[in-house]
């Protein structure tokens, strides 16, 4: 017993430096920003929200033309209609959100200490529906994307400021889970999100350019020409997993919600500019 006590005191004195201290989210963010500043020195910080169009002039020209009359306009109108339509019980989506749901979309996702979960905007939309006796919507496209498009449209220009409180172990754990997903290799192609969107960002992948991970989530939900329609962030996560031939997780799963939490945190300080149009 005495030996154990001595050993413990010794360890305490040594400061327990056997384990390296884990980087805090703030440190991760600083490192992330420094990396991209170094990789794309000519890109102003605010322009990251425009993805590949911030680093390629030719496609930017085409994209700016599209933005003059964007395809997602129809989705915003539809979303506004859906958002304002009352449920069968007379309540509306506005009753479920702060400020009636206007200009708050960029606050998602956030960590809810009470439930111990990462709460996304789409999850809140469906929670609003079910708590008011309505059927939940499909997670990846259609009505939920339209409503999200409208809500994000009202948040355009708002600065993203996701919190990961250092004193909340569960929040940190969710953040770390998202971070691990981002950096972990997966699938038959054995690639991580970071492989394309950090280390190869700006490079060509066949005929496409790889967008930098910083500012990557700000324009969601996104109208993709490839989809011929609008879709949610988790829809894209599933697509990306499939593209490296990994089995995708379910939309709104804990894994993707954690990833969204980390991913959005990395875009802190940037303007929300959803919905966006992409190739």
């Amino acid at each position, binding site marked *: 017993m005495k030996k154990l006590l001595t050993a413990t005191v010794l360890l305490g004195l040594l400061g327990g430096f056997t384990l390296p201290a884990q980087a805090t989210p703030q440190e991760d963010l600083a490192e992330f920003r420094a990396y991209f500043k170094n990789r794309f020195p000519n890109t102003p910080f605010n322009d990251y929200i425009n993805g590949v169009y911030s680093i390629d002039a030719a496609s930017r020209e085409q994209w700016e033309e599209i933005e*003059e*009359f964007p*395809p997602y*306009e*129809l989705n915003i109108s539809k979303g506004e209609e859906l958002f304002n339509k009352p449920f069968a019980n007379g309540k509306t989506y506005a009753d479920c959100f702060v400020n009636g749901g206007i200009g708050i979309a960029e606050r998602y996702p956030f960590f809810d200490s009470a439930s111990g979960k990462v709460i996304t905007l789409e999850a809140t939309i469906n929670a609003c529906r079910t708590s008011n006796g309505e059927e939940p919507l499909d997670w990846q496209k259609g009505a939920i994307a339209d409503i999200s498009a409208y809500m994000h449209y009202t948040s355009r220009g708002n600065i993203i400021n996701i919190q990961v409180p250092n004193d909340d172990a569960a929040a940190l754990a969710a953040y770390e889970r998202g971070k691990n997903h981002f950096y972990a290799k997966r699938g038959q192609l054995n690639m991580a999100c970071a492989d394309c969107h950090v280390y190869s960002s700006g490079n060509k992948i066949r005929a496409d350019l790889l967008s930098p991970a910083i500012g990557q989530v700000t324009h969601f939900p996104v109208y993709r020409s490839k989809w*011929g*329609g609008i879709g949610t962030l988790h829809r894209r996560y599933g697509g990306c997993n499939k593209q490296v031939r990994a089995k995708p997780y379910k939309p709104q799963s804990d894994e993707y919600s954690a990833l969204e939490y980390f991913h959005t945190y990395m875009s802190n300080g940037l303007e929300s500019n959803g919905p966006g149009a992409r190739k």
Partner: protein
Amino acid sequence: MASIKMRAKVTDGVTTIKALISHPMDTGLVKDKKTGKTIPAHFIQEVVCQHKGTTVMTANWGAAISKNPYLSFKFKGAAAGDTLSLSWVDNTGEKDSADATIK
């Protein structure tokens, strides 16, 4: 039916019209995943733009045009404040039109 969103602007005598039309543009070759039945062809066949009673643009479309088509074209001879009318007819006989003032 409000399926047309339209904007028109005149610069140096040339009017540019941009329109986004909401329409499924089904080719008639796609099967519904749930029912297995073919979704019948439903696409816009003709788009006409009129200015002061004259037709300034006629477009003959087919099934190859994508869903929710975006259309843009230019013409001369109009001035700011004039009204333009854009209308479409599809293969089922459905139609819609919208007006816009040139800015």
